[in-house]
């Protein structure tokens, strides 16, 4: 085809109807690529074209849905909710930190078991497992962990609901991982699997309540440090009855009561998680 040749009206009409056979279609399109005049003659349904372009564009560019998102969708979480939880980079780091901590704990427990002291492995687990969800929650929200905190904090979704959703997301994962590690621990399995849950609940709600005054990482460090210091003090005073004293039924009731108080404080002061609220 020469530059002098142009698409005549009959050919154009066939092209617009989609009635051209492939070889002629290719020839017409090759010509139109080089000829603005013929291109301009083509009647285009802009609405149809824009609609198709949008679908193609979104298919190419929209975020891919992974197995975690599919799972969350299957358990009934709305798309915007799981998108928010799985897309936030800070939460990924949080989950990674919790995973590393669980692995570390599992390795330490195994080493203690192999050295012939399964009781020590179980105690180590009970002492450290409640801190895992706290580590996770410390990285869930705030300027220290989220570079887009100022943008996030000035959107309509910002505030206590967003903080709590993020906290619940990281706590759930850390708790499941720690529970699985607990069941695999040597020694009294039920104690390792369940004895740490209420202390963990207390530390998590306490951290969130304290985070209405301090930043989340600082609040987590303060409560995690207090937990370890307290345990060390009890261990030095009553080495023989350390586990029953701290993880027995009466201690568990105390943890539950303290967690309820922390939850009440958190509920009362929840608005402090909003950037626009006076601290």
């Amino acid at each position: 085809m020469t530059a002098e040749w142009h698409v005549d009206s009959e050919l154009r009409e066939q092209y617009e109807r989609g009635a051209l056979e492939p070889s002629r279609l290719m020839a017409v399109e090759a010509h139109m690529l080089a000829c603005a005049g013929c291109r301009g003659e083509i009647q285009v349904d802009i609405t149809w074209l824009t609609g198709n372009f949008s679908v193609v564009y979104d298919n190419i560019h929209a975020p891919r849905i992974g197995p975690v998102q599919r799972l969350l969708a299957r358990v009934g979480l709305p798309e915007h909710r799981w998108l928010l939880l799985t897309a936030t980079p800070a939460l990924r780091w949080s989950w990674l930190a919790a995973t590393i901590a669980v692995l570390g704990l599992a390795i330490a427990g195994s080493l203690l078991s192999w050295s012939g002291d399964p009781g020590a492995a179980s105690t180590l687990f009970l002492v450290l497992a409640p801190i895992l969800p706290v580590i996770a929650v410390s990285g869930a929200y705030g300027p220290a962990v989220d570079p887009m905190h100022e943008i996030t904090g000035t959107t309509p979704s910002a505030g206590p609901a967003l903080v709590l959703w993020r906290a619940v997301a990281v706590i759930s994962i850390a708790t499941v991982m720690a529970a699985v590690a607990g069941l695999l621990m040597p020694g009294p399995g039920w104690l390792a699997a369940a004895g740490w849950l209420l202390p963990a609940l207390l530390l998590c709600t306490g951290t969130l309540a304290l985070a209405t005054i301090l930043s989340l990482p600082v609040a987590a460090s303060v409560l995690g440090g207090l937990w370890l210091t307290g345990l060390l003090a009890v261990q030095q005073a009553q080495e023989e009855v350390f586990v029953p004293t701290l993880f027995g039924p009466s201690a568990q009731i105390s943890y539950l009561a303290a967690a309820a108080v922390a939850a009440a404080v958190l509920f009362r002061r929840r608005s402090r998680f909003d950037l626009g609220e006076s601290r």
Partner: protein
Amino acid sequence: MTTVTVSGLSKHYGARTALDSVDMTIDVGVTGLLGPNGAGKSTLLRCLATALAPDDGSIRVSGLDPAVPAQRTEVRRRIGYLPQNPGLYPNFTAYDLLDYVAVLKEITETRRRRAEVRRVLGEVELTDRAKTKVRKLSGGMRQRLGLAQALLGDPALVILDEPTVGLDPEQRMLFRALVSRLGERRTVLLSTHQTEDVGALCERVVVMSGGRVIFEGSPRELAGVAEGQVWLSEEPPKGSTAYWRNADGLYRTIGRQPAGAEATRPSIEDGYLLLLGAAAAAEVAR
């Protein structure tokens, strides 16, 4: 229509006063907020964007009070905010980032959200960069992406904190064109310490110094502050420190007339510098 009204706004960081009883109103169009570093511009913008609670005074955005939690959420639905350091996630693609912010902006319905992402990408001329990761975008493109996230949800008030810092002249020109288009039907508040931005973009300018508003008016009125106080001379003026040699080899002085100097037409920068000098002198006198 007045979009923003600020009355007696004050903010302190410990002993330092960042905002000192600021009063101002902002209407549709582009308003420039001009001032040196530490003048209180970012603090004022953060208060308006609901990222910071003031210690005293009141803000109204379209009649809504952001100090009231329920109204604050409504205010957030009406504002788009680009902070000085937006911290856009470097490993997100432009599309993913906007999709994420759109969810935060309560655009939860997938179709509508995607249409909105496409719209703002087009508005900042980044349609062909949707799949590019933020860390691979140039500084200017990153700023445009920052602007795009602010435009999600079609806010009535757009707050931009020093958006042209670090941009090369071409990128700055492109950014200015975008912002001027925004100002045709929205209220845009643009903080800067570059008088060229104000001259090129703004219908109104507010000058801040030491946490106070020291001027409100048009860019022409700001230049007018220096009327009869800007001089050109062939020799360096004696006894004056505020002068510089311009491209024509003449010495430009702001303030008192040096011997042998002739008056010249003042620029926005002249007015601004004169205001800052007067504000600094008043501060010393206090």
